[in-house]
Every structure is written in structure tokens, then in C-alpha cells.
């Protein structure tokens, strides 16, 4: 039976949260993910303080499925300490592998919500429920780096697949590769025959969050986007 390999960031309460995921219904799952977002924020905030980055502007990015849950938990928690936070949300098509070659894979962006950064030099935090192939995350960071020049890039996920960090970094120019830091609570190294990470986050995140399909999550407009867009419209 597959087991999590806990990282040093995983405290006992955090481990209990991650272990709750497989057995939860949709609403509890969403709440647990929101809590885990808060836990990731705490870990990142400590790291930022240690590296003297406390005053730097922060830019948070996520995929649409995580926006109202994991990302909201992280954002809400960081907002208590950091004043200048911008946010982006991406609607991605699942990974396409042209000619069946993993090295050529990409995840097209169908839509993007990106708040204008006050400063190109920022701390970029990309949050995702699970990082496996890293293609979606790499696509979204590449997109953001058209306009941003982050001094640090935090990749935050409750669970990551072993070696996902190396795979992710390889999708960027050499000069940016040292800027990455990875924050996760568990590193898993097993997959089932469908490519699902075991024990991972308890199955397909779309279904666990309550989306009927990938297409369903891609027509979803997260409340966090709706709210922030409205606020922006009023300024």
C-alpha cells in the first residue's frame, strides 16, 4: 500500500489534514483544501521572513479548480501579513502530448485572469493541489513571466510527485532555475495504471472538488475571481 513520504514542512496537524482527504465528501474536501492552503501560507511566510523578503510584493497564481479552495486559503492567510498581493487564475486544457512525446507536452491556456502587478520584481507563489507532470504549472509560470521578473518563485502544493521539481525547472531558461523553491507536505512516488498519484490527494482533484469533468471546471467562474474583478472594476 502506497504511503506518503512526509517532508520537514509537514507538522502533525498538517499530516492529519492530508490524510483526511481520501475519505471526505465534496464540501469537507473543499474545506480541508482551504485549510491546507493556509498551512502552505504559514510555511511560505516563514521562509520569506528567513530570506528577508517580507516587504516584497507578492503575486499568487493558481488553476481555476483550486481558486476558491486551496488558493483562497493561501491568499486569505497571506493577506494577514502581507499588504501588497496580486492574483492570477488560469483556465487550462489538460496536458497535450504531440506525437506522444512527453518532452513536447503543453497545457493550452483557455482563459486567464491576471491582476496588473505593481512591481515586476515580486515573489511569485504558484499554488496547486497536486503537482505531477508539472506541465500546467510550468505553462502558467511561463505566461506570468512575460510580464513579471520574480526574484523568487515558490511552488506550493500539499502533495508532489517525486522529481516533479526537476521536471518543472527544466522547462525554464537556465538563469531562472535557481529562483525556484518547492513547498510541499508530502512527496509521493507511486502512480496507478491511470497515472493517478498514490496516495496523492485522494483521487482526481476535479471530481473531488465536485466538478463533473475537465470541461465543467473550465467553464466555472470562481467566486474569488468574480469578487476581485468587481473590486477592480470599481477602482
Amino acid at each position, binding site marked *: 500500500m502506497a504511503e506518503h513520504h512526509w517532508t520537514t514542512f509537514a507538522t502533525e496537524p498538517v499530516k492529519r489534514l492530508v490524510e483526511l482527504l481520501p475519505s471526505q465528501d465534496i464540501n469537507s474536501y473543499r474545506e480541508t483544501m482551504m485549510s491546507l492552503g493556509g498551512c502552505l501560507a504559514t510555511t511560505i511566510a516563514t521562509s520569506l521572513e528567513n530570506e528577508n523578503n517580507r516587504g516584497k510584493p507578492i503575486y499568487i497564481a493558481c488553476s481555476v479548480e483550486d481558486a476558491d479552495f486551496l488558493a483562497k486559503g493561501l491568499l486569505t492567510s497571506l493577506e494577514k501579513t502581507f499588504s501588497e498581493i496580486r492574483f492570477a487564475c488560469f*483556465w487550462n*486544457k489538460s496536458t*497535450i502530448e*504531440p*506525437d506522444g*512525446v512527453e*518532452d*513536447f*507536452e*503543453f497545457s*493550452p*491556456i*483557455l*482563459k*486567464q*485572469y*491576471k*491582476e*496588473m502587478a505593481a512591481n515586476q520584481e515580486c515573489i511569485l507563489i504558484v499554488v496547486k493541489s497536486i503537482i505531477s507532470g508539472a506541465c500546467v504549472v510550468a*505553462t*502558467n509560470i*511561463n*505566461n506570468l*513571466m*512575460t510580464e513579471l521578473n520574480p526574484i523568487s518563485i515558490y511552488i506550493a502544493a500539499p502533495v508532489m510527485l517525486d522529481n516533479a521539481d526537476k521536471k518543472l525547472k*527544466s*522547462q*525554464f*531558461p*537556465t*538563469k531562472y532555475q535557481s529562483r525556484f523553491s518547492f513547498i510541499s507536505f508530502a512527496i509521493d512516488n507511486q502512480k496507478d495504471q491511470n497515472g493517478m498519484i498514490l496516495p496523492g490527494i485522494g483521487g482526481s482533484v476535479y471530481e473531488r472538488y465536485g466538478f463533473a469533468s475537465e*470541461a465543467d471546471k*473550465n*467553464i466555472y*467562474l470562481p467566486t474569488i*475571481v*468574480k469578487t476581485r*474583478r468587481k473590486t*477592480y*472594476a470599481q477602482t
Partner: protein
Amino acid sequence: MLAIYMSRAYIDHDTSRYPPLQNSDTAIFENASSCSLNGRQEYLKHKHIGGASFQKGNNYENRFAVWKLAELLNEHIDFQIDGNVEAQKKDFFIDDLVIDEAFGNFASCFQLKNRNNVGWGNGKKSSLSFDCFWQEKESYSGQIKVVINSSAACRKLQSTKPVFLSNKVQILTFPNDSLEDLLDAHEMKDVISKLCAKERPENNLIRQVALNLLAVWQESNGCCSISSLATKIASIWPSTIRVSVTDTELKALKETEFAKILSEIPNFNFDFRRGYFNYEYFQTKATFNHHVKTKEFADLQDWVIQNSPEEFEDKLEMELLRRSLSNG
């Protein structure tokens, strides 16, 4: 300086085509030019049997091909020029990548050298000078180019180039960098940006185009027409590379009922540049996945006309995404 015209030791070419040789070049010229027709035919036969064959993957040769394919695709879209590109082309002495003569100034044959210790050799078979000498004599009208991975090696090769090849062979540098580094700093980025389905493309779209070019080139085993390349990329994911739209077509699109209805929606902006419907609403941006000449786009126009949306959020926003994901 001793200059001599070669008057012997070659069989079937006209010496008056070559500038005076310097001493150091004499032996090279003599060796190269003395190869008989049979000898050359035998050499080419073995070069393509035992020599390099097309290698799949994200390697130096294929990354260079991506740069050239992107240039040609831009030519194809803008001027409807079509022709073949081929790696390890049979019967070519300079054969690593050969661009069809139909591409005019872009037509070239390339020899790629991904190492530092490259020299012209002694003019005998398998040497760079031999291949360049005989390639120049072929009826192919494209340019002969030697591609090397560092500027230092390029300078060295340039400074030692035999006089009889001086105006006939160009040397250029193409670094052996990762695709990601090339897209960050090499002029390849501008060429691919011009090819993208939207103006001022983000880095992820530029990378997507490059990966698609690599994939399709690999799938073709290093031999394809540029028109087929465009079709195959569009079949992987539609809104990747631009499509040709004339100013008249753009003007007509802006005057449609569809455009009139959308222009009434507060804070909603859109354009049809590069043949795709791009829209924006308060920091939200997207490109409709199907170009303006497709049935999917025509259906979207019909839907907008029938429903006359007055705001973006919810109904129109969702419909645009839903239809973007549909396939006819």
C-alpha cells in the same frame, strides 16, 4: 603572396569561377576538385547509408530546424509560398537541412556542427571543404551555410575558410542551448512570436509553438512541406499559429452585426488580429480557439446575434469558453 590558378587535378569544373588560391588552399582545392564523378556518386551513396540519419528528439539539429521552420511558416502565411524542408537530404553534399528553392532567399542547405574542433579539412572526401566545394557545383540555387555552435569556433572557421569558398559558403552561429534558453535570448523568439496566434504572445504560447514545431518535425521524420506543417500544428491545438487575414477581411469582421453587439457591452474589448477573436474584460483575457474562417466561429457569431448579450459575465463568458472547447 603567391597566388596560383589551379589548372590541373580537377575534372569537370571551370577554374575561372574561383578566385586566386593562396598557398594553403592549393592542396585543399586540388584534393577536392580531383574527385571523379564516380567517386562522388559512391561517396554520396555511402554518406547517406552509413552517415547520420534523422535523429528524433529535442536535439541541436532539430532545435535549429525549428528556427528555420518558423521562418518558412511565416513566409507561407504571408505570401502563400510552399515547398519542402528535408533533413539528411539524399544526393546533397551539404545535407543536414535543405530548404526548397521555392523559398527564394530563404532557400539554403545547412551543415550543422555541434562541436568546437571544426575545421575545413584537407579537401578529401568527408571533409567540410570537400562537401562545400561539390555542393556549390550542384544545380541547387540555394545558399550553402555551415552552422556552428559557438562564436569563437565560427570566427576560427571564418578566418581559415579556403579562398575558393570565400563568397560561396556562409558560416553562422547557432548555440547549443536548451529550447528554453533559445526562446529567452535567441532571435528565434522573435520569429516564433510573429508566428503565434496572437499579437504580443506570452512566453507559454511561444514555447507551445516551438514544441509543436519540434513534434511535427519529428513526426515527419525530418521531411515535410511547410503547408502540411501548418495543418498538423492546427490539428494539435487550433489557436497556436496565426492564420492569414487581409485588411479587407478584418474590416468586414469589424462591421458585422456580431461585432456591433459585442462593442455595446461595457468594458468588453476585442479584436480579430492574426485571424483569431481575442477578447478582454477587466484583466480577463482569452482567445477563441477557432479562427475567424471556421464554422465554429460562424456559429459563435450566430449565437451572439440571436442572444444579443448585454454583459460579459456569466452567460457570454461561459458560452465563449464552451464553444472554444467544442470541435464543430
